[in-house]
């Protein structure tokens, strides 16, 4: 028996039960319109569903009864006892059919024409007083009431004494009534709560018994523990429902929309059996429906448009649900026209949500996310013009309320996909327990991307841009919030070692600085007291296994409080979940620091080259031989004004300085203002237009000058390049750099040149091989992987095959440092694999490669 039928039977049985009582009431008080309406509604529902399920016999009977009730309701006919009896007869007939359905799953054969005729007669008014059909019918009520399971089929017989119907009772009787019962949600909720408490108490007991030595309790406690776990699982199961339940109405909805809009739409649903907590299910039902409606309405084009665009005539909407960890991922995708970024831009400008300049710097994903802004959708024009947006803010809010996230991916002309990530259940979540300012807090795991230890030996250091802390994590700058600061707690004096909880909210990734990280723990989320509801930083509170109360942090609230979510984005969309990270860390995108110096043209320098950003007080800047200097970390650091000249009297009180450092040498580049950090594709035009700059590139719609780091480093003094090479790590050893991009050559040469290596650079692998043939000698080779013509892998193979350079250390330089790539590189013969821009790693790799086997 399929689920639909089972549901129908459960529902109908309930309806029938209610009907008996209501009809009897109606008989006593024929003028009671409320009861009459109720009866009519139930019968109408049964009739409607029967028709839907193709249960024709039942539909016929219900329809006849409904007719009579309809006449009663309209006042065209007076409620009479005989009428009620006939209806009761019809209900008994239906009950009989239901019983048979439960047994066999099919409608029993039978002839109800006499019953229907009598009902029709009543409806038409003729037979109202006529006792003829009423007499046999009137008998029926009697047997109905007392015998519950077995009798109904019998009761079918009386009205017209259908022989066929009476043959049915057996299957109905053999099979027990449906193996499901309806329990109110309250009961389940109550159970869930009790079980949650039980789990907590169990945890407390276990903790106590671990401390104590009294083993008498150990065994029963163990049992209690197991049973509690099983019970918890069982109760959780009662609340789990397949997501298909929330989808059941979608095919119809899509069909109707298709007809209405003149579109051909195929709906594909995958993973309908994926189960999730019914509470969550209820909460996502409407948003899901809404998104599907949006896809059908706005996402998909008309057949003509589709054909014109070279797409199949029928549009597709795909729903896909799957489990991932403790979450459910639901994707709602269409192959329609996609979001029109230009229209969104216009809308954003029109509504003043962002300035043109801000928009210009935003990646497309960021712009698409505007559809989630409140109020963005209200104007009808948006719906008609730009495509989407009806109430997407509501959808997003609803998702966030249950600890979920929603993202949009769209390609113009190709379609749109919404990806929703929600917890399986709201009742118990896995959380990371952290400490900040002496207090413990729980952070739900759903938002936690990774944990980074900072400030310790060999660990990454926290840095500051103006007053905000950032962490350079791999090749990105991660904005940080200090939890103790955010919560106004006293933070410990030393920031020596801390942890950064890298958290993702929507497309935004940020780090939360905490003092300590404990364990993860399963927690039962309890709402906070009403007088604390205004503190949006918390999503609830809970009791830990040790019995203490702990507040649960709300990453959404933190993001809002710190403005992370409102910022123009820092290429965060790049990371967007680990699934996509691998594909998107392309070597062509580079984190750049944007700043202003001298003139109005923004300038950029790869973030990877900068050691630190400092604010130097004007008073601390000294003049030595016409050159500004500053005492920095116990040493003198030369400062180079990027604008060409520096005047103490006109200088700002605090001078922003980009610090380049190498070994114990540092140099500072004085700039006017630090603007931003972006991740951009590098495309430099007009190389070397003016000294100090490699050329210009367009970043965020603005012409930006790219700093020639090597040139500026020379300005700091010749000794930067290590004339006293004895003390340098490189010791003048010869390195061959194979790199097709002039830009990267210009970055790498000074970087390793500064460390005392003697660098020769070539633009392609063929040239490198020519140098080999020419008999040049090197101590190590650094090569790019992706190059036109012969690539790095091929070069490595060629070198390893034989020849003078066969045993040289070979270091791969690439933006793609995934394990598989590394493996491929190693197989080809590379000694080591280093990410582009990771200067420290490159130098370390060189040092190791060169120190280990050959040179002394």
């Amino acid at each position, binding site marked *: 028996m399929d689920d639909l039928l089972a549901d129908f039977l459960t529902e109908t049985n309930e309806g029938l039960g209610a009907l008996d009582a209501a009809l009897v009431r109606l008989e006593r008080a024929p003028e009671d319109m409320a009861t009459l309406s109720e009866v009519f509604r139930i019968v109408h529902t049964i009739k409607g569903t029967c028709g839907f399920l193709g249960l024709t016999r039942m539909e016929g009977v219900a329809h006849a009864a409904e007719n009579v009730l309809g006449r009663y309701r309209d006042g065209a006919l007076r409620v009479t006892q005989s009428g009620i009896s006939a209806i009761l007869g019809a209900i008994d007939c239906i009950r009989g059919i239901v019983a048979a359905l439960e047994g066999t799953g099919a409608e029993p054969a039978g002839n109800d024409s006499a019953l229907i005729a009598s009902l029709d007669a009543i409806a038409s008014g003729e037979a109202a007083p006529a006792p003829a059909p009423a007499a046999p019918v009137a008998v029926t009520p009697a047997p109905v009431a007392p015998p519950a399971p077995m009798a109904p089929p019998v009761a079918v017989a009386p009205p017209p004494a259908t022989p066929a119907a009476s043959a049915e009772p057996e299957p109905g009787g053999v099979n027990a009534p449906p193996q499901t019962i309806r329990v109110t949600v309250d009961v389940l909720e109550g159970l869930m709560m009790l079980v949650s408490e039980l789990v907590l108490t169990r945890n407390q007991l276990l903790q106590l018994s671990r401390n104590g030595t009294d083993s008498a309790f150990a065994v029963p406690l163990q049992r209690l523990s197991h049973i509690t776990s099983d019970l918890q699982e069982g109760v959780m199961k009662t609340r789990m429902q397949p997501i298909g339940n929330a989808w059941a109405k979608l095919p119809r909805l899509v069909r109707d929309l298709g007809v209405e809009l003149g579109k051909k739409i195929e709906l594909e649903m995958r993973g309908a059996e994926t189960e999730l907590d019914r509470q969550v299910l209820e909460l996502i039902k409407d948003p899901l429906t809404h998104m599907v409606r949006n896809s059908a309405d706005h996402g998909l084009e008309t057949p003509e448009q589709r054909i014109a665009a070279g797409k199949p005539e029928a549009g597709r909407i795909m729903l896909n649900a799957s489990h991932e960890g403790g979450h459910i991922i639901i994707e709602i995708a269409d192959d329609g026209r996609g979001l029109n970024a230009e229209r969104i831009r216009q809308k954003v400008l029109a509504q003043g949500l962002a300035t043109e300049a801000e928009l210009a710097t935003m990646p497309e994903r960021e712009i698409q996310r505007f559809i989630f802004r409140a109020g963005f959708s209200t104007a009808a024009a948006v719906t008609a013009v730009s495509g989407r947006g009806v109430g997407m803010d509501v959808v997003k809010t609803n998702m966030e309320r249950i600890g979920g996230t929603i993202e949009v991916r769209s390609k113009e002309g190709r379609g749109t996909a919404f990806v929703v990530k929600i917890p399986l259940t709201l009742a118990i979540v896995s959380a990371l327990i952290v400490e900040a300012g002496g207090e413990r807090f729980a952070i739900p795991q759903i938002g936690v991307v990774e944990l980074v230890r900072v400030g310790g030996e060999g660990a990454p250091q926290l840095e500051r841009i103006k007053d905000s802390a950032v962490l350079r994590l791999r090749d990105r700058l991660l904005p940080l919030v200090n939890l103790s600061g955010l919560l106004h707690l006293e933070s410990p004096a030393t920031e020596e070692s801390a942890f950064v909880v890298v958290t993702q909210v929507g497309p935004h990734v940020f780090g939360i600085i905490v003092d300590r990280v404990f364990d993860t723990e399963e927690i039962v989320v309890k709402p906070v007291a009403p007088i604390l509801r205004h503190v949006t930083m918390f999503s609830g509170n809970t009791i830990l296994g040790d019995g203490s*109360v702990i507040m649960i942090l709300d990453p959404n609230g933190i993001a809002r409080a710190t403005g992370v979510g409102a910022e123009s984005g820092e290429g965060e969309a790049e990371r967007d979940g680990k699934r996509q990270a691998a594909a998107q860390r392309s070597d062509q995108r580079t984190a750049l620091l944007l700043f202003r110096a001298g003139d109005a043209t923004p300038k950029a320098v790869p973030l990877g080259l900068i050691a630190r950003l400092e604010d130097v007080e004007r008073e601390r800047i000294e003049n030595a031989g016409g050159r500004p200097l500053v005492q920095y970390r116990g040493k003198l650091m030369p400062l180079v004004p990027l604008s060409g000249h520096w005047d103490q009297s006109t200088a700002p009180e605090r001078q922003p300085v980009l610090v380049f450092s190498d070994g114990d040498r540092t140099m500072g580049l004085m700039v006017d203002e630090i603007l931003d950090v972006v991740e951009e594709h590098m495309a430099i035009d007009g190389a070397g237009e003016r000294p100090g700059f490699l050329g210009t590139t367009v970043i965020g719609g603005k012409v930006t000058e790219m700093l020639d780091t090597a040139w500026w480093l020379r300005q700091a003094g010749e000794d930067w390049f290590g004339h006293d090479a004895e003390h340098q790590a490189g010791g003048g050893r010869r390195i061959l750099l194979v790199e097709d991009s002039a830009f990267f050559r210009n970055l790498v040469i000074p970087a390793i040149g500064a460390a005392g290596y003697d660098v020769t650079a070539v633009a392609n692998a063929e040239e490198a091989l020519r140098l080999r043939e020419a008999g040049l000698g090197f101590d190590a080779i650094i090569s790019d992987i992706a190059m036109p013509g012969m690539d790095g892998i091929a070069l490595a193979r060629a070198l390893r095959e034989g020849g003078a350079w066969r045993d040289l250390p070979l270091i791969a330089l690439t933006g793609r440092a995934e394990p598989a790539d590394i493996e491929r590189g190693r197989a080809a013969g590379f000694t080591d694999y280093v990410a582009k821009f990771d200067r420290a790693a490159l130098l370390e790799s060189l040092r190791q490669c060169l120190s280990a086997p050959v040179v002394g």
Partner: protein
Amino acid sequence: MQTQTTTGPAPGLPMRGGLQADAAEDIYLTLTVADQLCGVPVLAIRDVLGVQAITRIPLAPAEVAGSLNLRGRIVTAIDLRCRLGLPPRAEGHRGAMSVVVERDGELYSLLADQVGEVLPLPRAERAPNPVTLDAVWRDVSNGVHRIGERLLIVINVERILAIG
């Protein structure tokens, strides 16, 4: 705001001589807050606890001392001293007692320096708040009883919990 609607399960003040003439006495639990004697209607009280471990809640109103665990339920603790504008407890104080009350299904603990005894007090003897009483106190007090040499402030639980 909600003053009119409920005064906790205890018979309310405005009904003097009215509907509940048969119960001429209200029963109070006395507690001390910075030497001030207060009375909380016993019918409003769910529990009285000794010194508890209380978790601070950052960003919460100052009156909220934190939350504590009462047999698996989370109870929000209200520091009566702070609520009544009294100086904080001295450093060496052994900690506060918790008088747990319920409002709208939520449990709150009123932190008092000491919990005294359960006293039936004739309703007729309750005097209205002196007009000169501090505004904060007038807001949370349902009247004053004379207990020997001391004055007992009748705490209106509903008002005490109206924070923020």
